[in-house]
């Protein structure tokens, strides 16, 4: 039972990996960016757990800025992905411009809230 589960897990891992290798490079870059942002957020949470949460607004703005850019990058990836039939009329430049605009608003708010 355990053996078949481990074998299943290995098969799963291999098929995931092979499927992922096939994605285009620009999407992989975006995925890397998302992982980086989430990783930064986790570091901040770990730091807060160590040091304490004062001042709370700085912690909030730090974590939410990382999560915010991650979410926005995922949205960009959705819009730029050629396999998404819903977005085939959307030019990738327009998607990127929207991404930049939303990030601008996000970071303006962050700078204001950072304290």
């Amino acid at each position, binding site marked *: 039972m355990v053996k078949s589960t481990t074998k299943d897990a290995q098969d799963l891992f291999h*098929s995931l990996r092979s499927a992922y290798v096939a994605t285009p490079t620009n999407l992989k870059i975006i995925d890397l960016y998302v992982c980086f942002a989430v990783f930064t957020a986790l570091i901040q949470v770990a730091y807060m757990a160590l040091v304490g949460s004062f001042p709370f607004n700085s912690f909030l703005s730090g974590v*939410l800025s990382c999560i915010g850019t991650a979410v926005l990058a*995922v*949205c960009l990836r959705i819009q730029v992905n050629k396999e998404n039939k819903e*977005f085939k009329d959307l030019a990738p430049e327009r*998607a990127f411009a929207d991404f930049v*605009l939303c990030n601008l608003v996000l970071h303006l*708010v962050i700078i204001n809230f950072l304290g």
Partner: protein
Amino acid sequence: MAALESPQPAATATAMRHAFGNVLSVLILVLIGVLAFSIRLFSVIKYESVIHEFDPYFNYRVTQFLSKNGIYEFWNWFDDRTWYPLGRVIGGTVYPGLTLTAGTIWWFLNSLNIPLSVETVCVFTAPVFSAFASWATYLLTQEVKGSGAGLAAAVLLAMVPSYISRSVAGSYDNEAVAIFALIFTFYLYIKTLNTGSLFYATLNALAYFYMVCSWGGYTFIINLIPMHVLLCIVTGRYSPRLYIAYAPLVVLGTLLAALVPVVGFNAVLTSEHFASFLVFIIIHVVALVYYIKGILTPKMFKVAVTLVVSIGMVVCFIVVAILVALVASSPTGGWSGRSLSLLDPTYASKYIPIIASVSEHQPPTWPSYFMDINVLAFLVPAGIIACFSPLSDSSSFVVLYIVMSVYFSGVMVRLMLVLAPAACIMSGIALSQAFDVFTGSIKYQLGRSSNSTDDAEDTNNAPKDDASAGKTDKGEEIVKERSSKKGKKKEREPADKPSVKSKAKKKALVLPLETSIVALLLLIMLGAFYVIHCVWAAAEAYSAPSIVLTSQSRDGLHVFDDFRESYAWLSHNTDVDDKVASWWDYGYQTTAMANRTVIVDNNTWNNTHIATVGTAMSSPEKAAWEIFNSLDVKYVLVVFGGLIGYPSDDINKFLWMVRIGGGVFPHIKEADYLRDGQYRINSEATPTMLNCLMYKLSYYRFVETDGKGYDRVRRTEIGKKHFKLTHFEEVFTSHHWMVRIYKLKPARNRIRGRAKKLKSKTTSAGWSSKSEKKNPWV
């Protein structure tokens, strides 16, 4: 819908029709804006351009401060003229949206050299924003069902009495701006959902920010949208557009909400926001699942599912256990008092009498539904059914919106205001569909009667003919009561775009000509009744400024301007630093108009302070004098309606003073003031009642008016008629005895007779007064 033969003339004809339709829509929208603005002007015409009620006076005072001192002073303002001696941090406890909006408009107009005063801008802010709100309703409904429904919904919202009641000219309150922000935020959310554009998602977050700035009811948005996302996921309508519509809103919205000082960290710590975080996590899980499903083969996907489910369950349990422990550690489970009273309607009456005592927080009665949304109450179910055919993301959203708002409006009458836009949207959809069916039938029938059979192709423009049998919609029931000729049954709203292909099917989908014409006329009459009711409600029911009262008598119109008379007296005849004590209803008006420091006001944030004032009003004179003296009070103000029959006076509110006071100081017991469970002020009243300060201050010298002391509100003669005041002296009574102001007599220098210890022993029993043999004050 496009013409079958596509040479140039037909295409230009379609383009011309479109252009004409657009121009007509714009004209209609302008007219709707003018209508929304002008229907709210009745109070300005009947009375004058004055600010109404109580809360708007506070907002007006804050706007005055903002316009005089600028935004930094406003943001950091600590108000020491209210809640003496505690003060109030205005910057951190007020929702700044309304004042900033009016302040900006005032500043902008003045920079253009249009010298409108702050009061004028404040009075007319609400009608202007109601015009904007109708346009926002048009946009929202257009996204759901098309521009015909949008126009119908907009015109309904411009006139719906529930919204008029909170946005007349002069009602300068948060809802005036907040309802516009609410509808606009929903419009942007639906637009993002329909288009999947990140640009609209950004705008959505900014509109949500404006909503958070304006009103505490923003929690409705941040709970309704996650509920809708969850509904979409559960019904299998997950799509990437849903992710784009929701995820940026949560992150940006939480940050922006935390920026507003009133909300602050509550944006992440209170239970009102937890739903959004929970659904945020859920939507990420769902997105990941869909992504993996997309890149794996079905067999591997099954393997993945079994693996993940087993591990995921364990993790889920741990996380849920932590959350539950966190939430259960706070006594209210993390919810604020007002939100909890929405979820559990009996909560407030058991634990927080102040919330229960506000009349706006009571559940509404059935007649108030018909008064406030009138005909729409019938059309809403038809609209709900129309939304299901076909069901799209946006129509599921409006259905969820109306269901939630119906529930909340049933809990608290004040929230009928949130129901109004939803009802208008639904009714607009219903009306538009009905009109489509009937006009389509008429067109088809006329087309068929004038030509021969090939018209089946030409009448492509009557595609919405789709009814199962000859039934009418529920709206006509009220008209049917008067014209009970046609025996029609209820109609189900037609399904949308039917197939235009099969001629035979089309023949069965069309109503007979006479039926359509009569039904059309009946619908128009329905609309006429609605308009008549709305104009009546705006003119008669909702335009009273409540600071000026009028009554019609045989000799004409009587105007009772006692409130402003007394506030003017206060501002001219007392020192600037004198403190005035009254019940909390009049706090805002006193600070705004009389410019004197008050003890408690309508913000009701400190229950103990209000209970202190309530206890003082319920105590005998000496104990009340002690309490007021300890608060540095110089003047006491009571409102008395017995001479003219004004029913909202302090004697009618007195039991609430007793209850609130008794909630904090246990020696005040409500039963002491009731005779056999009945509240009386006549000769059968209890001695505690006849000796309390409120009775004495209200009825002092009242017997001199007519010799018998007949109270027109309570409809009896008063119990104790001839008495003197020992610790207070009367300094002002307004023209119709509506407001009476008393001054605290200063303490005596010498005490006749045996010297008594005048230090009141402050035990936990509070102000218990022991019976004395000699009263040193007489």
